[in-house]
Every structure is written in structure tokens, then in C-alpha cells.
């Protein structure tokens, strides 16, 4: 459910550190009717314009806290809440050029009652905000 809503339409932009563009970010939600403890978020695979982003270059942030995907796996004291917009930041020197980009996100979540670990994938085209 909500498969087509896991990437938010707003919030897609380059990010800078000390005047230098270091990557880009976008907002994402869970494809789920509830939230999930962060240790159960197994992977957030990002692809931009057909290029797969290495796992170690992806960071996840909610409410001012931030984790690498490896750190998420052992985080037992915070959650990705129902419908909550998390910021997914991708390290990429120079960020992305202005204009439209194909953005794909695959969320792999460990759901206790399911006999398998589902991955929900959604791809969309978004305009990079100025």
C-alpha cells in the first residue's frame, strides 16, 4: 500500500556543506499502515538516472537525528513513524544538475509477521528544486 507515495513530490534538492555542493536529498515515507522501529529497515536502495548509489553513501534522517544504513540496523530506540517524511541524503560531490531526474527508491523492510522480507520499489521523475 502507498507504493506510489514512498517518494514525496516536494523536498528534492541539492545539499551543501561550507559552500560546497556535497550531494542531494529527498523525502520518503514507508509503504505501510503503521510505523517501524529503525532496526527493521534493512535497506533503502537509491537509483538516480539509472545509476545505483552505493549503500554507504545513503543517510537517513528523522526529527533531527541521522544514521547511515548500517547504523540503522542496530538502532533500537527510534522509529520511522506512520506517514512520516524522512530525509534521504545521498553523498555525491557536485550534487545533481538542475532539471528533471529519474529517482528510484527500493525500501526493504523486515516485517515480523511476514514469512519473507518484502521490498517496495517506486520510480518517479522529479524536478530538482532550486
Amino acid at each position, binding site marked *: *500500500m502507498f507504493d*506510489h507515495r514512498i517518494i514525496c513530490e516536494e523536498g528534492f534538492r541539492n545539499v551543501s556543506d561550507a559552500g560546497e555542493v556535497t550531494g542531494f536529498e529527498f523525502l520518503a515515507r514507508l509503504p505501510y499502515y503503521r510505523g517501524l522501529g529503525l532496526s*527493521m529497515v534493512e535497506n533503502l536502495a537509491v537509483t538516480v538516472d539509472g545509476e545505483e548509489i552505493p549503500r554507504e553513501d545513503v543517510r537517513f534522517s528523522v526529527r533531527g537525528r541521522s544514521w547511515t544504513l548500517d547504523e540503522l*540496523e542496530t538502532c*533500537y530506540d527510534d522509529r520511522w*513513524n506512520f*506517514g512520516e517524511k524522512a530525509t534521504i541524503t545521498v553523498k555525491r560531490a557536485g550534487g545533481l544538475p538542475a532539471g528533471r531526474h529519474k529517482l528510484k527508491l527500493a525500501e526493504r523492510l523486515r516485517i*515480523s509477521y511476514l514469512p519473507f522480507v518484502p521490498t517496495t520499489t517506486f520510480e518517479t521523475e522529479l524536478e530538482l528544486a532550486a
Partner: protein
Amino acid sequence: MTYDIKRGVSLYSFQNDTFLGRMNLEDCIRTCAEMGATGIEIIGEQTFWGWPEVGVAPEKIAEWHALMAKYGTTPVCHDFMLDYKRYKGQPMPFAEQVASVKKDIEFGALLGMKFIRSLVSVDPEVLVAAAPFAEEKGIKILLEVHAPLHFDHPWILRHAEAYEKAGTDALGFLPDMGVFLYRYPRVWKERFIRNGVPREAADFIEAGFNDRRLAEYVVNDVMLKWGPGPQMGMVETLRHNAAFSPKRMLDFMPRIHNIHAKFYEMTEDLVEFSIPYDEVFAVLKQGGYKGHICSEYEGNRWVEDAQEVESVEQVRRQQLMFCNLLGETMPQTLVA
């Protein structure tokens, strides 16, 4: 036997609206109250951000009680999840699972709930170990009997035996009416066709389900005739759903304390397309059921790709059907 069937709603029904921020908690409660559906069920962690890992601020609990008072609604059930796969590669230890259930018992009690819902996959021994604490808090833990499981499945029988042996009234069942799927849901079929299943294959699978054929035969036929593809996903639903009889609830009635009125599509003439609610109500009356029957709209995920999800209208129609089946006068707001 005398029965006392009260109307309620699980806020699961409005998930599309709450996910998108189109309805807040007060909107949900007011909507239910206007329909005369005064029993409120929630999935704790859907309604309350932070639960369970972070916790819930006392102001949020106070707001909940204020809303119940303002709209004359009653807390019925907190559906808890128990994430026993919290640690990658190793199941949560038994004692920690019990402690987690106790936390949800406390949370349920704090919200004024009478029941908390356990997922069907939880081990009976975990619930038995938590039962004395539930008794102390005035809470009953109800195992959700949900498809593909059903009342004759050995796993459910094992639960029932464990509850009897424990000699406690704090453990029981919460049947989901999706177990009684008499007809292949139209909204499922149409979604599978949009996903690429050839219409002919979809018709074949639907007929196989409606003719009560053994799922394995239909799966094999579809593989031979159409080969791998989205049709295999559609035919897989026959392994997980079936037309069990609502009468199977009768043997378990003393331990049934809440009901999920699962539905996929309420038609304009106020019937559920695939679940026989007339039979369901006849059985509940015959068994002297006393408790709530809570709307649980699950058509949302089957139509969201093609249209706006109309949760409130769908729930309204189901509540009208409940009124008809119970011989209740329909609240004016429902008829309008």
C-alpha cells in the same frame, strides 16, 4: 440467546486519509461518532507516533481521553504488533517478548481499552505468560484469527488449548471477517488486471475461487496455460484466502470479544461484494455475541493506484449495512 452487538470502527479504515494528513485524530473520531459508531479501535503505533520504541507523551493520552469525552465514543481495542524480528538474524528472546506484550497491556489500559489485539503469529506461551498482568490491568488479549488461518487450523486450536489450560479469561480471539471470503473481490481482480494479468486469466482465477476449487489445482492450471507473470501473483491469493463458514465461530464464542468487520468493497446497494455479512450477523446473534463489530476497510490498497480512496464513504455504507442487519434506526447523518 441474547446478544448485544455494538457498532465500532477501526481507524485502520482511514489510513489513506491519515497517512496523507487529510484527517487528524479528531476528524476520525468525529466521523465515527457522526455515524453512531461509538466504539473506537486503533493500531496504537499508527495513531500515536513514537509507540512503542520512543513512547507517547502524556498530553497525547490526555487528548485521546478528551476526544472520547467530547464525542461520546468508547475506547475498544489497541492493536499491538510485537516486533519479534527486531534483531536481525535472531528472534527476540521469550522474556523480552513477554515484557513487550506487558508494555502494550499498560498502554492499552492507559488509553482506557478493554482489549488489545495480538497478531496471529505470536506464540501462545508468550500470551499465556502475559495473561496474569493483563488480568491485573483489566485487559483481555485477543488473538486475531486472520486469513490464511481460520478456526480449524491447528495453530488456532493450539492457542485455544493453551488458553483453556491456563484457566484464564484474559485470553481470547478477535476474528477478522476476511476469513469468510465467499466471492473473489472485484477490486482485487481489477487491480491485478491493471498490473498486467490477461483478463482471460483473471476470469479463470476468479471462477476457480468462486467454484471453491483447491488452490493447488488452479495454480497449476494457470502456470500451464499462461506461464510465469503477474497472473501467478493473482492465483497465489487462492492459497491465502478461502470461503470458510462463519458458523465456525460458534464453538469459540465464549472467547470472542471483538470483531474486525474487514471489507474490500461496499456497493451502492449496501452489501459487501465478497463477504456474507447477513450470515455473519445471523451467526453472531445465534451465538449470543456481546461486543463491538468494528469496520475495517481494506479496499484502500486495491484501488489507490486508479482512483481516490473513499474511506469515509465506504465506512458509511458498511455502517448503514450494520444498521440494517441489526434493525437499528439509522442516524440522520448516515442517511444523508
